């Protein structure tokens, strides 16, 4: 017997399971962002140094991530780590690894751009006060750069959250994977369930991402004034 499709969302523990899946996605995004932003800040700082070698190596790193799509990145980690290096870890951590390296690459470019657009007299004033290189970064450049880079960073975060939708491809139990299980399990009783489950997931992603986009837009508008 066919039920109205929407009830599939609330049958048994379906809704709670979807929320659990969403939490997995958000958790992976948050952890990857935390690691990626730290690494990216470091890479960004290194790219403003004079050493040609460091700059060249980091440029190669950045271009690699510019060229390789995130889906392919996930598969590279997923297939090559266990087979080539005998490193076995849960798919969740592989996703965190791939995403962190990707975020670090993108963020290093944001950091470098922001550091370079801190007015030159700020750096010179710092030097005149006798600050060393580290103090200059810590007390003069970083605090100002963070303000400049915040909108781009928030946009990066929304992209990371959207990219978590790819997790099902390396069989992480994310919100879409859970959704597919629910659809398959209820296909007989709720033939239109697929519409509601994917519809809900669509809306869930929007609810998570939209406030962040609004915030980024608001900050950008404020900086222009």
């Amino acid at each position, binding site marked *: 017997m066919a039920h109205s499709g929407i009830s599939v969302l609330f049958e048994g523990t379906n809704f709670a399971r979807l929320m659990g899946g969403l939490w997995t996605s958000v958790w992976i995004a948050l952890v990857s962002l935390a690691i990626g932003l730290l690494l990216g800040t470091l890479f960004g700082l290194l790219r403003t140094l004079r050493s040609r070698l460091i700059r060249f190596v980091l440029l190669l790193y950045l271009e690699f991530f510019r*060229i*390789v799509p995130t889906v*392919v990145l996930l*598969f590279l980690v997923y297939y*090559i780590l266990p087979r080539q290096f005998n490193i076995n870890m849960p798919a969740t951590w592989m996703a965190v690894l791939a995403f962190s390296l990707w975020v670090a690459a993108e963020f290093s470019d944001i950091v470098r751009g922001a550091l370079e657009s801190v007015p030159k007299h700020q750096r010179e004033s710092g030097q005149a006060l006798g600050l060393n290189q580290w103090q200059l970064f810590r007390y003069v450049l970083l605090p100002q750069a963070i303000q400049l880079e915040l909108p781009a960073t928030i946009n990066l975060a929304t992209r990371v959250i959207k990219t978590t939708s790819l997790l099902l*491809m390396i069989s992480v139990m994310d919100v*879409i994977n859970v959704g597919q299980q629910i659809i398959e399990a209820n296909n007989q009783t709720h033939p239109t369930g697929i519409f509601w489950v*994917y519809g809900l997931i669509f809306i869930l*992603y929007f609810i998570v991402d939209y406030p962040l*986009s609004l915030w980024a837009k608001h900050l950008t508008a404020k900086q222009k004034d």
Partner: protein
Amino acid sequence: MDWTIIQQSLPNFVQGFKLTLWLSLVGIVGSIIVGIITSLVQYFRVPVLKQILNVYVEVARNTPLLIQLFFLYYAFPVMGIKMTAETCGIIGLIFLGGAYMAEGFTGGFNGVSQNQLDAGEALGMNQFQLARYVVLPQGLSLSVPALAANIIFLIKETSIFSVIAIPELTNTALDLIGMYYRSNEYLFVLVVAYAIILIPVILLLDWLERRVRYGAFGN
């Protein structure tokens, strides 16, 4: 790394390569058209249409392509709308890309300085002439950096088409890995194939960006 394996797989990859190029091209051209129209509607504040397109841009930008594709490919048939995977892919890519392009063009149009608009009005130009001779030429050149980023982004997004079984590059590689279990070789070819597409595109777009710097004139 076994080179004969790579050699044997090349015909398959060439097929996937062509399909990725073709889908990217259609997607990018479609996105640019949708993007320009959307941002012009927003720029000239066409009533009603503007609100609808605002919602479209926010929805498309804040949801992943993968779930948009799933919706088109799996959920639409339930409502009686059936399309081939490739049609779904192209519609999905243009839906997503159009919104990104619209944002880029809007940024460019808003960058045209007020003086230029005032000058145009002082010459007695009407709304259409302002758009055609003042806003578009300057705004488009200002939006080239955003356009370039979006083009690269859209080419890479075609890799997501593999989830609805469109035999583009990524899908080809996954298929081959599934059949012959040689992940190193196939992933290597896959990365090289994307590099062959994207490196010239990146260089070309960098060149274009340098060519159209005149757009910042008067700011």
